[in-house]
């Protein structure tokens, strides 16, 4: 248990260094602004920090502030808001060049990403992810049995990056109910730019043994294995490669993101 708690803390405290640079075309003053360097928590979402970016760059732009969007500098792809920071980092910055360079745009909001209006939109997206995960795990019983103040506490813990505050409530979502731990595992597998894979996966086989990560990948993404059964992709979450023999239920309990999903990125081996 001491190990488990250490792992939970390490996962929570993961931060990535990001350097935000204002897009060159949008600078409206003579001086070019300095990049904004931030250590962003992996488990959080980008829109929550936009006010910092705005404050930093506000003097250098005269565009419409509500149209802020981010772009991955190396690939010129717009960043999807609704993915957690850690997922985006693993997926887009697989070469791990640190710091992660992102370009801040204030104009020309692209059509390929969702628009968001305010912080509440992020909160409702987060809560709906949690409810979906609970529906997969416990048929929705745990989340519906919680009081509103606990839902609020989850979001508040995420916002303020407070481990104890978040996990005081999240612990209940991570418990099994009685004999079966989770009915199915909430997970999303990302591969390149395509739509993520999300399938139903029962974590226990007929005998009641819990399955491993290897079993899950074989079932939902069998193309990761070549003919010999070797992996041809790296299976990454939270920036680390997971051992294939890990117990899948344990992974879901400890290595999920705060929205209770296991976000797994498949990165091809070089």
């Amino acid at each position, binding site marked *: 248990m001491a190990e488990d708690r250490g792992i939970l803390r390490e996962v929570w405290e*993961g931060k990535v260094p990001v350097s935000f640079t204002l897009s060159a075309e949008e600078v409206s003053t003579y001086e070019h602004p300095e990049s904004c*360097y931030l250590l962003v928590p992996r488990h959080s979402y980008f829109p929550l920090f936009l006010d910092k970016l705005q404050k930093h760059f506000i003097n250098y732009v005269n565009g419409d502030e509500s149209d802020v969007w981010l772009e991955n500098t190396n690939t010129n792809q717009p960043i999807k808001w609704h993915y957690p920071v850690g997922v985006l980092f693993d997926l887009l910055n697989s070469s791990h060049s*640190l710091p992660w360079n992102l370009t801040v745009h204030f104009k020309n909001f692209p059509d390929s990403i969702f628009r968001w209006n305010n912080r509440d939109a992020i909160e409702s997206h987060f809560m709906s992810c949690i409810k979906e995960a609970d529906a997969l795990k416990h048929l929705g019983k745990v989340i519906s049995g919680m009081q509103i103040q606990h839902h609020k506490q989850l979001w*508040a813990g995420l916002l303020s990056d407070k481990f104890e505050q978040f996990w005081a409530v999240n612990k209940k979502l991570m418990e099994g109910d009685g004999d079966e731990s989770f009915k199915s595992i909430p997970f999303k597998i990302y591969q390149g730019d395509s739509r993520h894979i999300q399938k139903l996966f029962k974590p226990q086989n007929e*005998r009641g*043994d819990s399955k491993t990560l290897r079993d899950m990948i074989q079932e939902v993404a069998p193309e990761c294995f070549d003919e010999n059964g070797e992996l041809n992709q790296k299976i990454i979450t939270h920036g*680390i490669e997971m051992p294939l023999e890990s*117990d899948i239920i344990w992974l879901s309990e400890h290595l999920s993101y705060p929205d209770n999903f296991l976000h797994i990125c498949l990165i091809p081996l070089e």
Partner: protein
Amino acid sequence: MPQSHIWLISTSGKVYTLATGEQTYKRIPSIGLQKPNVKKVACCPWAAWAIGSDHNVYQFVHHSAVPIRYQEEVYENERWLPTRGWSGRHLLPGLDPANWSNKDGTYYLVLDDVKLPSSSWKWEHDWYVDENVDGEVTDKGGWRYSTLDFIRGKFGATKRYNSCVRRRRWIRHRIYSSTGQWSIIPPLRLDPLSEPLVSLAVGGFSLPNATPGSATVWVVNIMGQIYYRSGIVRDKPEGTNWNQLSISSGEEVLCINAGPTYLIWAITWSGDAMVRKGVSWRCRIGEEWVKVQAPEESDHLVHVGVGSHTVWAVSVSGKVWFRRGITEAKPDGTSWVGMVDRMRTVSVNASDQVLGICNDLKLHFRRGITPESLSGKTWEQFAKFSVEHYKIPSTLTPIIRQKRLSQTKPINIIPSAPPGRQKRDVDLTSLSVSYHKRTPSEGSSLGDNSEDLEEDDTESEEENEEESEPEDDEKGLKWIWVSASSCLAQSEEELTMWTVKLLTNSIEKLSNSWKKEILEKLRSRRLKEFSSFKSKKYRLAVEEVGWTKETSMRLASDSKRQQWIDCKICLTQDTLHSSLLLLWEKNQQIMPVSDILCVHSLAKFPVFILSTKSSKDYRNLDRFCLQAQSESEREEWLQLLRSVDYRSENCRKEAWAISSFGQAFYRRNDAWKLAGSGHFHQVSTDGDSIIWTVGVDGVAWFYDEGKSNIQLDKSISIIWENQRWNPISGYSSRRLLLDPPSWMDERGRACNKNDVKLPSSKCVWTNDWAIDMKPDGGADKDGWQYARDYTRTWRAQRKLRHSYVRRRKWVRTWRLSSLGPWTEVDLSPDAPKLSEVTVRTLWNGEAKVWCSTESGELLERLNVSESLPGGSAWRHEAMDLKFCSVSAADERRVWAVSTEGATWLRGSRPSEECWIHVPPPSSVKLVQVSAGRGSVCVRDEKGNIWERRGVNASLPEGTDWQEIATESCHVAVGDDDRVWIVKTSPENECFQDIQQILPTNCAVLADGWKHVCLR
């Protein structure tokens, strides 16, 4: 949960056992049986009985760490005459006992007259004189002297001028040596074949209030008569004799079965059932018969399986019936319910789970049996398991008789394995391949036995004595008989284990190497991504802000917790520190969380106690007793308060303690942290890695940090019923003003049966309230104890002038299954129940662990080391005293306190392993000892603490005793000569403090404790 077994007979008549939690059938060898096959078998948790093919009854007693040992004594008496001196020939006839007599002197008993009761017993050693009778050392030669005669005088060790009579006690021990093999029980008739036995059952081994180890064995012979074996107790496993139980209606019985408690059912030749009514610990065979009709006229019953509260039967057509409505008052039940499936035989275990053998001789178990639906849902087949020979556990080592210092006595080392056992070892290694003349090539499969299905009771033709290779389960072993009554599997989950065969790679999953890998990777990620960038240039995207959690609770306004006032509790966490704020009425108290020494929860209400360092008086503590609104809220706050400063987890644990509620805590940096769940009675450790505890029910556990095991706890709740006698209405619950309440709990508070709540919502009651018939001091037939007043001693007899009040003890047990870092040391079914344990680590990482059991024996656990904290085997220290406390001073010296109140020291002389008697302070009876390297402290029954002075390397037993403290309920000695005591608090056990007596005086360290261990 200790292991338990089911017993099976295969189609070839060989006996197998299957243990819970394992997946191999173990074949019991036929040593001891006159013919190698067995027809019927019946079992109880510590032994099994079988009817062999020669129609003799055999018994198989399991090995146990504490051997079955009985002490025989003979007294030698002498009288002094002025002319002749001391002699045994001058005893006055009629007045004095004989020269050699038993203890009371009532009959003549010579040393040679004392014989072994049967061939299963062996003498451990020869007769020797006991030099320590009743806690006192005797005179030279073992004599004790008295003034006038043998009956009235008190015997003492000193010879006075007016001592006229003397006696000494001779002792010899015998041990039951045929554990682990079959031993024959004297038959009913001289020629057992004249009246062959057809049915066998054993029951009554869990009757409440009965002597432990007692059981009743039933047999039925071909003429339909029932006989039972009486007198089976732990000290006499083979019982005394056979008695007949008559059936008044003249019916003849076909088969009999008995459950662990009060159920005894028999099936008659006419197909009906007869049930014995009125079975209790006083009357094990019941008082009368009650008849039960067969479920259908044409469908006669042929077999019955009896559990604790359920009865299943099988009729001629193979249909299975379940008897509904069985209670203790009505053991014959109300009606039959038919089940759909067909079975050949059924057997019910102690928790009412059912096993059955179907028509194609495969073993099944009934799925879905819960207390609500006792008839279950479906039958599920057992998976195929492998088979191996039953091995003697390697735990037994030769019992070496311990020498005591006063006199040389003959020492006999008798190996615990009689010669027969060596032969069996040899047989295991040289297996013969083909055993069945019928199977030509494989020689180890039962495939060709399918023709034998009809003849299930035939005797096998082979007469060879060699042990043959156990049948392989490839084609599936077939069974003809199963007996599950010794199986203690509580729930379906434990039995479900037998229906699926676990894959071997599941063992890999249990190892946590991948967890460590993940943690390593996370740590290196942190280094790469975060630590190298944490500079002024990079700001944190989310500034750390504090958060607060606030709730309103109630605070006890005085220490008696009679009044509650509303208060608000507020936990604030900032980046650097966290603090707790309490606001009530007009006061407030702020304390940093690091000052909170301990957080305790109490049993009954959602109350918890916070102890903090007081700002006013550094020597005392501030205590706050808070009541949360619900149990879940209390749990939430307890977790929060305990987890807030987790970062300092890698410090050394200085001391361990058990709270008065039974939870284990360890001390780190002045604060006490909870170590997992579970209810314990005692803890012992030396250093950081090997920590042992003894649970409330006597089970030993060791600490396994980082693991999260399923722990099963059992504990007892007790309430007392008090009554006072008055001339008008006799005994009634009307009380005098100062009397304790008529229903009170152990602490004397008023409490009804319904008021007693479980400590947490996860606990489960296992039985209903029952009267404890054997409280301390004895009780009469209804369980009442009598005394002159509530503070006097209690007796079982009601004497006219001394019985103004009476009381009765009610007990109820509860069970709790939780996850925690403790692992059971010994999972075997006969694991000894410990009362105290003491651990001493040696320099090479191993440890010496000594324990005393609840029955007073001393055991040592072998091979305890950091890699194997549970050790591997028990070694029994054969003594002729009973001990109640033990403490290891260092690697060689061990101090122990016997039940008579004297101390003993082992290992003080470097060359001999013997025990020295160290007399206690005069007229004081000791109950507990704690020894460190430099000092030894004992506690007596009045709560005073004595220290042994003068203990040093050359004189390890010290010189004399000095009293150092009073009013304590536990003492613990640390290595560096620190002595801590738990002071008794007159009003409330929960406020008992741990104080450090030496070197500094009386600094209060914590509160609410009952046991502490410092190393």
